[in-house]
């Protein structure tokens, strides 16, 4: 029975990684850059929800919507100010370093605005817990909400990318920016839209992360950000289902590793699995091996 309980915890944790990983993977697919500030957008999103609910007394659902709007604008602003001018820089390192800079900037900004002490995040998800097998297996409302949200987002995004005009424009830009431009696709607007969607999802991830683990500091986004990035690479960076599967697998491996091997080396196990996967399949589980034309 405890195995099932571990498995559900793993899926729940993995769902949060998956939602964060989507932000990494979409941005990488289109802009071919790693947005290291993504984890910190999550943190900002969580702070917006917290302050909306505790200070302004806003309804939690509206607070999450406001937080999504704030993060969307923030993501677009970061792209416009920090990344776009460097898009054609001679070295891809320039934009990578900028991303790390933006990450630190957001952390320190939050440090000044919200203070450094950990804030307790209120429990806003009011779904009841499910108790199975005489209380031996308890699934919390937060876990259920997290998994459902994750599935909805996956379905929504898959539909968006494959069936809508903007979504297909995204795919086109990710395959060949120059050709897409020649076909009349507004590349700048498409990249902006990608950042907007990724950052909007970050707000949801921030809310779910802090609902599951209710403690919030300016550094809250950093470690989940790194793990989600790992998940994105694991699943094949650039691939939407890959990010989803990668995230969930990562969560499950982490929890099962903790449960059956050692709680001290859980993180080491996670990253060891990543290394093995990349050795066997360098593009990740769902990554496409695209031949670079010279």
């Amino acid at each position, binding site marked *: 029975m*405890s195995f099932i*309980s*571990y498995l559900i*915890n793993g899926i729940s*944790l993995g769902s949060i990684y998956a939602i964060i990983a989507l932000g990494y993977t979409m941005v990488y697919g289109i802009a071919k850059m790693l947005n290291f500030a993504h984890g910190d957008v999550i943190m900002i999103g969580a702070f917006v929800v917290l302050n909306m609910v505790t200070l302004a007394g806003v309804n939690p659902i509206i607070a999450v919507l406001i937080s999504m709007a704030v993060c969307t604008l923030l993501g677009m*602003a970061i792209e*416009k*100010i920090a990344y776009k001018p460097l898009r054609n820089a001679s070295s891809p390192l320039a934009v990578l370093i900028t991303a790390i800079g933006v990450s630190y*900037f957001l952390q*320190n*900004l939050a*440090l*000044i605005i919200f*203070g*450094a*002490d*950990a804030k*307790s995040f209120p429990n806003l998800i009011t779904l009841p*817990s499910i*108790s199975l097998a005489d*209380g031996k297996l*308890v699934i*919390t409302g*937060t876990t259920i909400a997290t998994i459902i949200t994750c599935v909805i987002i996956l379905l929504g995004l898959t539909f968006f990318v494959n069936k809508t005009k903007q979504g297909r424009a995204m795919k086109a830009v990710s395959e060949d920016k120059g050709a897409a431009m020649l076909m009349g696709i507004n590349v700048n607007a498409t990249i902006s839209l990608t950042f907007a969607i990724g950052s909007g999802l970050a707000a949801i991830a921030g809310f779910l992360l802090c609902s*599951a*683990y*209710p*403690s919030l*500091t300016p550094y809250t986004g950093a*470690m989940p950000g790194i793990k989600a990035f790992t998940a994105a690479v694991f699943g094949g960076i650039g691939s939407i289902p890959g990010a989803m599967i990668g995230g969930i697998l990562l969560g499950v491996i*982490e*929890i099962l590793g*903790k*449960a059956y091997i*050692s*709680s*001290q080396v*859980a*993180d080491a196990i996670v990253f060891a699995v990543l290394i093995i996967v990349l050795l066997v399949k360098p593009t990740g589980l769902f990554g496409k091996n695209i031949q670079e034309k010279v």
Partner: protein
Amino acid sequence: MKNLKKVLALLFVAVLLVSTVAGCGKKEDSDNGGSGSSSDESVFKIGGIGPLTGEAAVYGVAVKNGAELAVKEINEAGGIDGVPIEFKMEDDVHDAEKSVNAYNTLKDWGMQMVMGTVTSDPCIAVQSEAANDNIFLLTPSGTAVDAIKGPNAFRVCFSDPDQGTKSAEFIADHDLGKKIAVIYDSSITYSKGIYDNFVKEAKNQGLEIVSAEAYTTDSNKDFKVQLQKAKDSNADLLFLPIYYQEASLILKQADAMGYAPKVFGCDGLDGILNFDAEGTEGVMLLTPFVANADDELTKHFVESYKSSYKETPIQFAADAYDAIYAIKAAAEDAKITPDMSASDISDKMQASMLNIEVEGLTGTIQWKEDGEPNKEPKAVIIEDGEYQSLD
């Protein structure tokens, strides 16, 4: 589009500027009116180091408040043999490197003695500097063994091994449980140190450790696995030698999975009530200070603390208050004067620390040659959101 870009860039710069200025403002706050020039030789200059911001800020701010209160009282009563104390506290954000920087800043200011640092890992770094410079150091709350390695260093609180040992003793003496589950942080000295000695002493006390699960600072959010194992082991008592942020998460996750163990912790849990009292009912912790104790000294301290800082003092404030009074007692015993060099002061203070006995908030304290305090442990239980003495 061009214009928009300019406006955004300007906005970005403005935010940056504001943040720099705000940062400066914060720094001046922590200076505590340190306007005294370093050539002023008619005062004793005591430097404090601790986290005034960051995740451990609750501890550092409490130490700062407690120490300032003691300094104010001593100065109003005529100082140390007529010489007033000047106290200045620097922020180290619970980071060893920043702590050494803070130490150097204070040395430039003319510090003659160190009251700090507040947390273990920074204290280990700072004490080694202080040992090289031979500057007297008294940490109110640095619990790691190595935090007072040098002959010049002393502490007010119990060390990690002592806390682990005393916890096992206390649990056995008060019959709180026979089968113990432990969740600890294997990546910090504090938690690992307590755990190791708890295990040792538990054997002597006839306690059985049925589940011992660790986590690290990089994965300190999800404790469901550790809790599940503790639950499956049918332990009578869950021992948490960790800090309160994680403990709060553990208590909430335990509650969500329908697990309600008896919980016992160490001084790291102190501060949990100010953070989030949810789920803390019935939690027991080893702490040398209870704010609602009814002896005169505690009453007086709590009253003046509340009127100055608008909150109930935690153990760290009491440790710091005792530290300043211990420095006063030792300084008077050693008959030191402000014109002596810091190194001479350190030599005399070291000898005098062994002579004094301080009737403090955290008990009647004497010091041993290795710098460890000698006092009785006390524990509390949280009832109705308040500490109650556990005897």
